[in-house]
């Protein structure tokens, strides 16, 4: 029965190709636009690490000015980065499964080929746990061991693009690259990795791609390198202050992540942080009320408002656009169906029930919806490509399986919305009148 209905629907579409292509184009256009912006919103608001986003916690403590909250707009929140001395203090804990403080620096890389000029690269300074904690995929080799953090030993992990640039690709584990003034040994080359949003450091742009180079955090101390991200300080610190004084200051510039797998672990870590801050209060620091915060990945992203308002606005507008396309379809379908009233009259007279006629026409609308939806998905991929190019974001937006499903879903809903009324009208056609006229 269903196959028969589809055959009839196809025949009907073929009978008037111009009108049918108009119908399909209307749905395709609506689906293309709405799917594109649903995808943009979905990627901005998505879970970048679904396997363990509820086990990874962003650590915050309130070391800010006793007289003034960190944020005037939201006085209840603690600062959103931590100091070097506090990172050192809390990383003595053995409660988290993995933990790492981190920041982004800009360092000079000297390519092995002499004729290539040195270049600057964004380098993530982090601890060995960074890689297992964030499930960073490797093409060759792996991260460094925890013992390399302490030295620190001159080891680096590079991404595929940097590997191409320095060594022309391939397995470069064990090769040496000069960074700043010393040679580093490559321990691993990343496979493509693009968490979106880039949750681990929202301050330097949640849409950014991960850094090209990773090295042990303590080289910050060796190179005396300041963050290339955000740095805020409420106490006085001379620009010319020695680096060690800067490290000991209240300047916040480090992002701190910890993996806590169980509730007990989370509770224990939370108690540990509280004890740490109370200890520091005795030393005259942390003048504000106790205000530690452990947010998991999705809570942290929501707190940081990483979804651009533009994306939300475009989502609303594009869905309304699809609605207009559907309303448009109602008119065309009505005309198309009613022109067929005599034929339906004959079918009704020959015994087709109203529900069969109704269903038949709904099937036709949904067929239009699906064909339009498939074309729309193609167009939508094109739209996303254009948006990627315009934003120069190295292909952040693309259709994945859920979004293809969403696009087809939207086209089915649009087909149904557009088809209900015309199908209802046509199934109410009384058989007699049209038979008489013929």
């Amino acid at each position: 029965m269903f196959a028969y209905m589809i055959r009839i629907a196809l025949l009907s579409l073929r009978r008037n190709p111009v009108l049918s292509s108009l119908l399909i184009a209307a749905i395709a256009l609506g689906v293309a636009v709405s799917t594109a912006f649903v995808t943009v919103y979905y990627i901005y608001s998505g879970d970048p690490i679904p396997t363990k986003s509820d086990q990874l916690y962003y650590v915050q403590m309130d070391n800010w000015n006793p007289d003034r909250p960190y944020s005037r707009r939201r006085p209840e929140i603690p600062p959103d980065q931590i100091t070097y001395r506090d990172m050192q203090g809390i990383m003595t804990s053995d409660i988290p499964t993995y933990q790492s403080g981190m920041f982004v620096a800009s360092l000079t890389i000297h390519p092995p080929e002499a004729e290539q000029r040195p270049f600057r690269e964004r380098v993530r300074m982090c601890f060995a746990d960074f890689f297992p904690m964030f499930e960073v995929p490797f093409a060759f080799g792996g991260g460094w061991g925890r013992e390399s953090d302490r030295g620190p030993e001159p080891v680096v992990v590079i991404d595929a693009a940097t590997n191409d640039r320095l060594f022309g690709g391939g397995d470069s584990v064990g090769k040496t690259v000069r960074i700043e003034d010393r040679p580093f040994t490559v321990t691993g080359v990343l496979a493509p990795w693009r968490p979106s949003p880039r949750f681990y450091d929202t301050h330097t742009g949640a849409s950014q791609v991960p850094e090209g180079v990773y090295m042990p955090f303590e080289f910050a101390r060796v190179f005396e390198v300041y963050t290339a991200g955000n740095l805020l300080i409420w106490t006085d610190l001379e620009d010319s202050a020695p680096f060690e004084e800067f490290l000991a200051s209240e300047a916040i510039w480090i992002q701190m992540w910890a993996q806590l797998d169980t509730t007990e672990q989370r509770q224990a870590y939370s108690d540990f942080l509280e004890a740490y801050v109370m200890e520091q209060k005795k030393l005259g620091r942390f003048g504000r009320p106790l205000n530690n915060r452990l947010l998991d990945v999705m809570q942290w992203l929501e707190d940081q408002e990483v979804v651009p308002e533009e994306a939300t606005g475009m989502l609303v507008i594009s869905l309304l656009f699809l609605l207009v396309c559907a309303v448009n379809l109602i008119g065309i379908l009505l005309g198309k169906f009613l022109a067929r009233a005599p034929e339906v009259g004959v079918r009704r007279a020959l015994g087709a029930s109203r529900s069969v006629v109704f269903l038949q026409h709904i099937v036709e609308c949904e067929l239009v919806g699906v064909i339009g939806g498939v074309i729309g998905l193609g167009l939508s991929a094109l739209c996303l490509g254009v948006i990627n190019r315009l934003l120069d974001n190295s292909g952040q937006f693309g259709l994945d399986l859920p979004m293809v499903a969403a696009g087809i879903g939207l086209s089915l809903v649009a087909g149904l919305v557009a088809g209900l009324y015309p199908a209802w009208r046509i199934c109410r056609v009384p058989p007699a009148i049209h038979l008489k006229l013929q």
Partner: protein
Amino acid sequence: MELGPIFRALMHNPTRFWLITVEVALTLAIVVNCVAIILDRRELLTRPSGLDEPNLVVLTTRPFTDEFADDGFIDTVREEDLQQLRALPGVRTATAIDYLPLAGGGGLTGLAAPDSEGDGHPAPYFVVGLGALDTLGVELVAGRDHIEADLRPGDDEPENLIVTQALADRLYPDGDALGKSVVDPDTREIFGQIVGIIREMHNAWPRSSIAGLAMLRPGPAYDQREIRYMVRTEPGAMDAVFNELEPTVLAVNGDRIVNVRSLADYKRKYFDDEAVLVKVLTVLAALLIGVTSLGIIGLTSFSVTQRTREIGTRRALGATRSAVLRYFVIEIWVITGIGLAIGALLTYALNYALAHLADAPSIGWPLIATGIVFLWVIGLISALAPAFRATLVPPVVTTRTV
């Protein structure tokens, strides 16, 4: 006027009426909201910054040898760099600067007048070498430019600051900022004194509500990792000079990575989201108007076809062609009119929602009025072709099939 019959005919078969009404109402709401956002963001993109944007180029140099750990060495190289850059044909002048206006990153401190209350005012600042005013192209309206002595103040001497008029007015609302001191709002220690006021200059965050607050601090404008220059070319000489800049400073000292970018390029990058939004919304609004117009054409054609016999009857009873045309024109007028009235309310509703969700600007009545007139005309034009077809229906149709 045939309003009475038109209205009764509409109510007799209201489907078409409602479809066009809904479509026109939705279209008005969406298009007006899109245009409001487009105008708002374009204003942001084209707002004058007070800087000579088209003629400014930025050179960022990052040394990679140990010699640069010595401040004296940096000073020598820097002087030589600036001298060579200024000597290039097509270059008007150049200065050292720490961060860039319009690029989204830089220094920020709080300032207050010494005897004022409260938390003070945000003062985004740039540390600049000599000749900054001429290089940036900003206009001095009171006081003086920085001089050699400002670069190295004695221990007890205040830092000599140049601020924008907007910042001066915030600190000293009575307009007597020149020569006055400013303090750190927390410690109440003297921060510096205002020696010059410039008319307008945008800081590093031109999107923000404090875009016009900026301050120029005299100083060495570098650290060991980064020395940056702003170069102002002669009008139109940018393209010719652009590729000369890197070799010029590398000839002074080659142990550096040099990056050359126009200030306009930094600004474009900063305003990427807005620019993309404007483009996307423009395309969407145009598409939507097209779709709606097609919808009106389709529905009117359908209605003309359906009413062929009625039109024939009217013609047979003596109605002229122009009367038939008038009938359809007035009908589409009435329908779109009602749709647009509902649409005006919808526009406000959508605007309210978007303002909450997406920081959309609120919409004034002139914009809605423009939108209504525009869509009214679009509706009319769309209905004209099918309406003309209606006038071609011959009276004889009536006699054919009864």
